């Protein structure tokens, strides 16, 4: 029973996707949304049933669907058993968290999307892509081997591309989609090479036995796990938008808002975190890479925090905050606090989906105005959305009592005494928390307080679907902390407990971590006074004439320009230089030869009958002559 439910989990949205793609244009809004949201509801319900079957007695559920293909490490060696790559699902504590987030949050976002995208001419296509995305993500998290995981991994990449460029008639969207695809491809290539190496070294790719096999082959600090972990980290970095492949995420906000919520906040970008948590056995054998993970996470969360301070598009602020929160997850994974990282992944999915969807509702009410400087005073005019948005921000800032508080404090608490992190990274995390609360307050002041700066009348959506999904997400964001114990319990079997030394920790660590967001709030209350005032003291506050530094931050600290200069420009220059490709010319020689022969033969085809007759006659004479000469010479000899 449980196994059947688990086996069917990704197939509900898949069927819905096929139906929508096949007959989508003929379905009414009601039918299309019932189909896609209903499939998601089935998925969500069955995933909760399945998760409830997991217990300490039944730590994993496996279901084997079919054998996909067989990989031979070396065909000449008969003693090596070929590795079977199965289409099988593997459910344990970690994937249970992931499928509950993917299908649960995915269901709520589908509900929202059905209301948000109503009236779009390609509504069914949109819902079909969203469903396909859920399929790929479920396969990714349920895969029992890394090849199947990679299938899901590429599947979400594809859906991300399709959905970012959903409104393909505007060039900027298409460029953003292309950029996201290419940048993540860099990471995916690294990951693929990592998988090849892993297979070459260990001879199989089953997630279940990988840690055990790795431990028999290697000891900590060996070279092979170092390179494999580094390459896998490359994949994770690309998908999770961490340094140095983070540039695609802010641009990905070109997609419709439910996409940003689903893909670029709640689920897809956490795939990298999932990968590292899943491969913890390999990563623990490479302590240097663990500290790289931590440092990358810390660098990204600081960079994204600074960039978020300068944004004026509400969705880009949220995009940068996503980057920085995933930075926290990476930091915690790097510090060896796997369950804290996964817990933050879950709570972040709750509140970031809430933030994005509420932002979507606000944008809808403002006639697709996303500029913060064109908002203001929405607290009184959109009380429902404003309340929910502030709940999300409170969780983001990790104020005590909210779900974000539990998870972020769990991460920060582990950093100081971790062997792969340390006090310096603790300071980074605290500073990042400070930045988080400052940009959250800036966003709140600009959007919800102060003077009204938008021109058109508000048109808040009255759809019940939209409101219900927002309310459920808000509820989850508030009470998300209660899952902490269940989660830690179910994950404890999966992740080894690293040795740490809590005696060295100063007493003030926890109090500082709790107080930091409040310092940020007080600072921004004073510093951004103009933003929240109805009559700003400085009249030019909302003119938005950015200084050079602000522009630099707004463009993501110049990474785009740097990559443009280092990679894009030289590449396109080379392409232009080699426009008449040398190898092309070599191959074209064949064509020239054929065409010359053609010209020669063509000239013989005059179409004049008499010439043909003359040619036949001439040839006959020559033939006869040669025969005669031959017979003469034979007679002579």
């Amino acid at each position, binding site marked *: 029973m449980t196994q059947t439910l688990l086996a069917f989990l990704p197939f509900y949205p898949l069927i819905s996707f096929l139906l929508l793609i096949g007959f989508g244009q003929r379905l009414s809004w009601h039918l299309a949304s019932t189909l896609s949201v209903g499939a998601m509801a089935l998925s969500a319900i069955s995933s909760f049933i399945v998760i409830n079957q997991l217990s300490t007695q039944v730590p994993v559920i496996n279901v084997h669907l079919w054998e996909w293909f067989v990989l031979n490490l070396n065909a000449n060696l008969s003693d090596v058993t070929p590795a079977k790559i199965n289409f099988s699902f593997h459910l344990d504590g970690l994937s249970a968290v992931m499928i509950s987030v993917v299908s649960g949050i995915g269901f709520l976002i589908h509900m929202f999307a059905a209301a948000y995208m109503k009236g779009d001419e390609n509504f069914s296509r949109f819902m079909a892509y969203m469903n396909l995305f859920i399929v790929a993500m479920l396969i990714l998290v349920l895969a029992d081997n890394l090849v199947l995981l990679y299938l899901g991994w590429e599947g979400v990449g594809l859906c991300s591309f399709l959905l970012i460029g959903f409104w393909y008639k505007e060039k900027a969207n298409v460029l953003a989609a292309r950029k996201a695809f290419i940048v993540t491809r860099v990471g995916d290539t690294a990951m693929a090479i990592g998988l090849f190496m892993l297979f070459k070294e260990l001879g199989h790719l089953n997630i279940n036995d990988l840690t055990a096999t790795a431990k028999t082959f290697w000891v900590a600090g060996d070279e092979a796990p170092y390179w494999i972990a580094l390459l896998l980290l490359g994949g994770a970095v690309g998908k999770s938008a961490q340094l140095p492949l983070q540039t695609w995420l802010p641009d990905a906000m070109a997609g419709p808002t439910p996409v940003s919520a689903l893909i670029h906040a709640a689920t897809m970008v956490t795939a990298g975190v999932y990968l590292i948590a899943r491969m913890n056995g390999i990563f623990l054998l490479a302590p240097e890479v663990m500290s790289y993970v931590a440092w990358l996470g810390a660098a990204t969360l600081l960079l994204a925090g600074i960039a978020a301070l300068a944004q004026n598009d509400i969705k880009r602020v949220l995009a940068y905050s996503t980057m920085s929160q995933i930075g926290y997850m990476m930091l915690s994974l790097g510090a060896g606090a796997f369950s804290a990282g996964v817990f933050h992944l879950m709570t972040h999915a709750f509140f970031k989906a809430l933030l994005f969807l509420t932002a979507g509702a606000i944008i809808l009410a403002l006639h697709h105005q996303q500029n913060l400087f064109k908002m203001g005073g929405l607290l009184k005019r959109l009380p429902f959305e404003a309340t929910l948005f502030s709940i999300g921000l409170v969780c983001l800032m990790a104020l005590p009592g909210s779900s974000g508080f539990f998870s972020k404090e769990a991460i920060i608490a582990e950093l100081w005494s971790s062997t792969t992190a340390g006090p310096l990274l603790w300071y980074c995390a605290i500073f990042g928390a400070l930045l988080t609360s400052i940009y959250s307050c800036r966003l709140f002041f600009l959007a919800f307080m102060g003077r009204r700066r938008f021109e058109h009348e508000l048109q808040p959506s009255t759809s019940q679907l939209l409101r219900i999904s927002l309310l459920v997400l808000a509820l989850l964001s508030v009470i998300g902390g209660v899952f902490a114990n269940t989660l830690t319990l179910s994950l404890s079997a999966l992740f080894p407990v690293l040795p740490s030394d809590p005696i060295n920790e100063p007493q003030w660590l926890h109090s500082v971590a709790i107080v930091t967001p409040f310092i940020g709030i007080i600072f921004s209350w004073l510093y951004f006074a103009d933003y929240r005032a109805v009559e700003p003291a400085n009249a030019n506050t909302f003119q938005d004439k950015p200084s050079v530094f602000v522009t630099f931050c707004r463009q993501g600290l110049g990474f785009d320009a740097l990559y443009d200069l280092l990679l894009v420009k030289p590449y396109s220059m080379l392409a232009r230089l080699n426009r008449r490709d040398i190898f092309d010319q070599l191959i074209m020689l064949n064509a020239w030869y054929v065409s010359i022969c053609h010209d020669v033969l063509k*000239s013989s085809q005059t179409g004049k009958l*008499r010439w043909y*007759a003359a040619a036949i006659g001439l040839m006959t004479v020559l033939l006869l002559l040669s025969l005669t000469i031959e017979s003469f010479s034979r007679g002579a000899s």
Partner: protein
Amino acid sequence: MSAIPLSHILILACTLFTIGFIGVIVRKNTLFILMSLEVMLNAVGVAFIGAGSVWQQADGQVMFILILTLAAAEVALGLALLIQMQRRFNSLDIDLLSKLKG
């Protein structure tokens, strides 16, 4: 009647054949080309008859009758085509029919 040597017959046949062939090549008028073809066919006929009489075999005459039939059929077809040509192109110039030029 003294027997005519085979070489004389063959020389006559070759001469006739060459004349006919040159006629096919140099004449532009399709009617004359057809006539030259007849000459060529008759040259072949002469060779057959001569060879038949030299070796005292009937095969040569049989072949000549076949050639004669063939020539008749050919002339019938050729003249029909000629009439069509005259109707369509208003001319019998064989060089005008060069649509198959490469």
